[in-house]
């Protein structure tokens, strides 16, 4: 009888542990798009989530990786394709454009003006805030390789890591909220 009870107790304990580990108050977001408007949305949600005391993990992949380049950093030793990609893709978050109504850069310039007027923080300010608040940025290594980006040319950000899809999946599976932008 006593043994039975003990067995049940341990099983319950196992289940509770599993549940506790299950979902955290955490936001996992895939940032795929490299457009100004979408990255802006991602950063607003990310910083907002930290105000809600959520842990935030962003997974930057594909076009979005270009927005994490530091225009001041130069890397030597790239092959021809990487150099081409490097030239074609925006060099950092201040070079990215609106997904709609870009109008050869006029729309992008206008929206930046309107943002200022409406006192919406700029991307520079948002990244700084996100860094202070502990928002984690993980860059997809495969995307970086495809675009020919190197770790050394990425921005100085306090919580920046290079990782693979398994990291995102592991983070996402224990997050209450998952988003794809």
């Amino acid at each position: 009888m006593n043994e039975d009870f003990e067995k049940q107790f341990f099983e319950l304990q196992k289940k509770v542990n599993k549940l506790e580990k299950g979902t955290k108050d955490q936001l996992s977001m895939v940032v795929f798009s490299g457009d100004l408007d979408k990255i802006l949305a991602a950063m607003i949600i990310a910083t907002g989530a930290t105000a809600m005391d959520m842990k935030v993990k962003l997974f930057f992949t594909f076009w979005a990786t270009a927005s994490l380049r530091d225009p001041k950093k130069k890397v030597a030793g790239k092959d021809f394709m990487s150099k081409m990609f490097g030239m074609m893709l925006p060099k950092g978050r201040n070079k990215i454009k609106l997904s709609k109504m870009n109008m050869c850069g006029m729309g992008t310039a206008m929206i930046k003006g309107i943002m200022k007027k409406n006192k919406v923080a700029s991307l520079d300010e948002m990244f700084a805030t996100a860094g202070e608040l502990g928002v984690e940025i993980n860059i997809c290594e495969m995307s970086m390789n495809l675009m020919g980006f190197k770790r050394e040319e990425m921005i100085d950000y306090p919580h920046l890591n290079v990782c693979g899809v398994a990291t995102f999946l592991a983070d996402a599976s224990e997050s209450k909220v998952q988003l794809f932008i």
Partner: protein
Amino acid sequence: MTTEELKNINVNKVVDARGTACPGPLLAAKKAIGDIESGEIMEVLSSDEGTKHDIPRWCEKMEHEFLGVIEEDSYSRLFLQKA
């Protein structure tokens, strides 16, 4: 709480987040709430319309008590008690 009660409430900390847009006021509130003790009252000033909905929801999640809002001409004053 009624507007009269709110007007006479003893506020421990005022956060002026006028001049920032979403999520500015929320981040300001989150930063400032660390400076006060449990049970103390904080007032958030915001000119951002959305904040009026955001702060009560934020309080709900963080288990602070939202006390109410006083509307001024170009901004609102939101009151809450720290959990």
